[in-house]
């Protein structure tokens, strides 16, 4: 059993709350990503799990073993937790060869020499590095170093794998490849994994569930699909790249029960879903740039807006536009080329989302 249960975890540095009441349950074999901007407490959570950073409150349990319980004064030291942590900087020991790096955790566990060799070969094969065992870390590329770091962690068969932005030091292309490869490996091994990143694309592509963090708290814990389609707060929506926020007022419902809202210019829009609980009449409607259709002529659709193109950027296959609607600016994308000036916009109700204004 390696289900991870984190309850009410807190970490305070004086008045600074690096972690504030964080609770998270990760099922066996699940891949959960902690996503959030710099300084939101992702690493702190991971280090608390690994036993390298002592929280000030809460409990951490893996399977039936309690690793940390502030109230009961339990704090199992890092070396007894059997949790594998891969560092952002890889933390390979520069004075040891790849093989020696991998042998270290096995030696500590008194694995017999013969078995060590077998397991090291296995681990190297797993990360496609067979034959590089005698190299020193500085003789490897960044991507290879990252895979050695992973192999060094996998070689002792941890009950839980923690990855702290393992791909952030790789270039964009390699990052893409490494991400697919890592995900595949995790599925293959069935390893419970907690992954930290501030790259939303990475999180969406790899995770079973995503925990979005903000200022030491988990603000939404959901599947990638739901995080993307139904961000719970404006912060999540913004972070996941929702793009446009148009302030609106709630004015009623249509016959199908969908919500009707009105922009500052008095344009009526039909939206999908309901307003978040506790929201007042002031709301914001989000529409992703790629869901906005642009046209020189008026479009016949349920949601229509008119605006002025004030800026255009060439994005390769498409063009990006900044459109002024009243005193709001929104981003739109189109394959068609439009000149600056008046433009019509349209979008479908199901592509919208209502959030607290």
């Amino acid at each position, binding site marked *: 059993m390696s289900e991870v249960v984190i309850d009410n975890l807190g970490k305070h540095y004086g008045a600074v709350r690096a972690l504030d009441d964080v609770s998270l349950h990760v099922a066996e074999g699940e891949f959960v990503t902690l996503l959030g901007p710099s300084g939101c407490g992702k690493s702190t959570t991971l280090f608390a799990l690994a*036993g390298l950073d*002592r929280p000030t409150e809460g409990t951490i349990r893996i399977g039936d073993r309690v690793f940390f319980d502030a109230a009961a*004064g339990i*704090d199992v*030291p890092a*070396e007894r937790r059997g949790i594998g942590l891969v560092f952002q900087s890889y*933390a390979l*020991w520069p004075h040891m060869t790849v093989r020696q790096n991998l042998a*270290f955790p096995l030696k*500590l566990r008194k694995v017999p020499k013969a078995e060590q060799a077998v397991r090291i070969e296995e681990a190297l094969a797993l990360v496609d590095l067979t034959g590089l065992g005698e190299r020193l870390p500085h003789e490897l590329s960044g991507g290879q170093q990252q895979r050695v770091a992973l192999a060094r962690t996998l070689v002792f068969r941890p009950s839980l794998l923690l990855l702290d932005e393992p791909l952030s030091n790789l270039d964009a292309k390699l990052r893409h490849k490494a991400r697919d490869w890592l995900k595949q490996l995790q599925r293959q091994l069935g390893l419970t994994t907690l992954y930290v990143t501030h790259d939303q694309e990475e999180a969406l592509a790899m995770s079973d569930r995503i925990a979005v963090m903000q200022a030491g708290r988990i603000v939404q814990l959901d599947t990638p699909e739901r995080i993307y389609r139904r961000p719970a707060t404006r912060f999540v929506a913004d972070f996941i790249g929702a793009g446009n926020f148009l302030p609106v007022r709630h004015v009623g419902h249509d016959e199908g029960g969908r919500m009707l809202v009105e922009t500052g210019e008095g344009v009526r829009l039909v939206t999908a879903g309901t307003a978040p609980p506790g929201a007042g009449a002031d709301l914001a409607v989000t529409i992703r740039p790629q869901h906005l259709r642009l046209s020189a002529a008026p479009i016949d659709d349920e949601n229509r807006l008119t605006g002025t193109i004030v800026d255009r950027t060439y994005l390769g296959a498409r063009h990006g536009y900044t459109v002024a609607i009243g005193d709001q600016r929104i981003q739109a994308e189109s394959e068609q080329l439009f000149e600056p000036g008046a433009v019509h916009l349209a979008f479908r109700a199901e592509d919208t989302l209502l959030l607290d204004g």
Partner: protein
Amino acid sequence: MNIAVSRDPATGWPRRALTIQWSVALLTLLLVVAPLGPILWQSFLDRPLYEAGAVPGFANYVRLFGDPDFHAVLRNSFVFAVLATVIAVLAGVAFTLFLERTRLPGRNLLRNLLMWPLYISQLVTAFSWYTLYGPAGYFTLLGERIFGVPLWDMYSVPGMAILGGVTQAPVVYLFCASNARMADATLEDAARSVGAGPFRILWSVALPMLRPPIIYSAILVFIGSLETLAIPLIFGRPVGIEFFTTFLYSKGLGAITPDYGMIGAAASLLLVIVTLLLVVQGLLLRRAGRFVSVKGKSQRPKRIDLGMGGYVVSGLLALYLLVGVLLPMAAVLLRAFTTFLTPLLSPFELLTLENFQSIFDYPVHVRAIVNSVVIAGVGGLVATVLIAVIALVIRRSSFPFARALEYVALYPRAMPGIVAGIGFFWAMLLLPFIGALSGTIWILMIAFTMRGIPTAYGAIAPALMQIGPELDQSARSLGADWWTAVTRIILPLTKPALFAAYTLLFLSFLKEYSAAVFLYAPGAEIIGTTMLSFWAEGEGGAVAALSVIQLIITLAFVLIAHRFTRTHRDV
């Protein structure tokens, strides 16, 4: 916070990490308190500390401050320290500016020569000056013959201060030079662009930037001057000019019944003065840190071109080194191989090996040399290991009292050698388990180790801090406990610093003498104490021969160490 991690659930014993950390902390504390405690305690007792029925009080201090001799001691010590500091700072700063900020001809050679006094025992340097510039010195007599009157008097406070300044100028240079190398050259370029000449730039731009390291090193030199025993012993005591250190020396070793109370009070006073100076230095350094800007961007330091002036400056600096360092060393060498040295006779008529025979013919003296080498070689190694672990506990562990331990570990800076010697001597009288070491070279090793902690720590701690925390954290998460992580991962990565620390300790143990004068005993002599005995007997030739032997060992060690670091550069 609840600290319930101290016991191992499997065995019920405290964890290995905490056991090691506490042991090291207590051992360090013992090393420092063992000499410190008896001195402070004795300073308040009305009779020797080993006698029963002593009553604590302030009588010793009252006697000390009432003693007119001691007033002279205070005056001499401070005048000497101030003068020596001024001279060391002037020389050190001049060398810094010209060697580090200008394109001076021959600057590498000058730099190497300047550093010599750091490797050489002050006892040897003082003796070398005595041979040349002492009252019967070679140059003194030569000058007297030509001009009819002696041109200088080394048996005076200013005379001694010149020597004190020259021996400590390298300290000032070391601190200022590292600062000057990092200085932002664009400031000097800016001065040049508004029309300042090279000397003007040095004076108005480069010099003011050195203020923090100058203040810092000036305090170090001042402390060093208060601590020196060799200079006043050789040049002051013969004419009754007593310093703090010689006062302690005379009261402790010169009298038939040592005045314990007086020694305790004087030693305590010296401790307090030096401690206060270090506190002031610490405060100044903290304030200085705020406006020293070290730039991340690496830049090649641009050097100022002095033109023809460079040759003049080079010549002047070379002259200083010739007179202050090179000629005295040559004189010792010559003195070691002659029956005596005088301008009246050519030294080649007086050549002899007798001086070396008077050492090698006596097993006692050979043993002194062996002892010195063993103390430096083995003791230095043990001390390096111990201090490395101290540094690991302070810098790379979650030991709850790491900061306090750092204060303890750095405190020996405030303990002059002779005071440490007296302290350990008294500790042996007081504590039976230390007393068992009496008359062995172990007590010398222990005393030298205590004195060496700050030096070696200063070499190791910065290296530890340069290693990212994730390197031991990763070891921990892979299953290593603290001790395994630091010894298998961190120590191998600090090899160069450990080696540097060992080199420093070897050299300082080899030349140490002041901490030994109260501790050595028959069978446990070292080169320094044997030199002092020869000196007391007026055996100048034997002193010179021992000096040469010490220099040869130093030179051999430095060469081997240099070789070793060259071939092991990549570790």
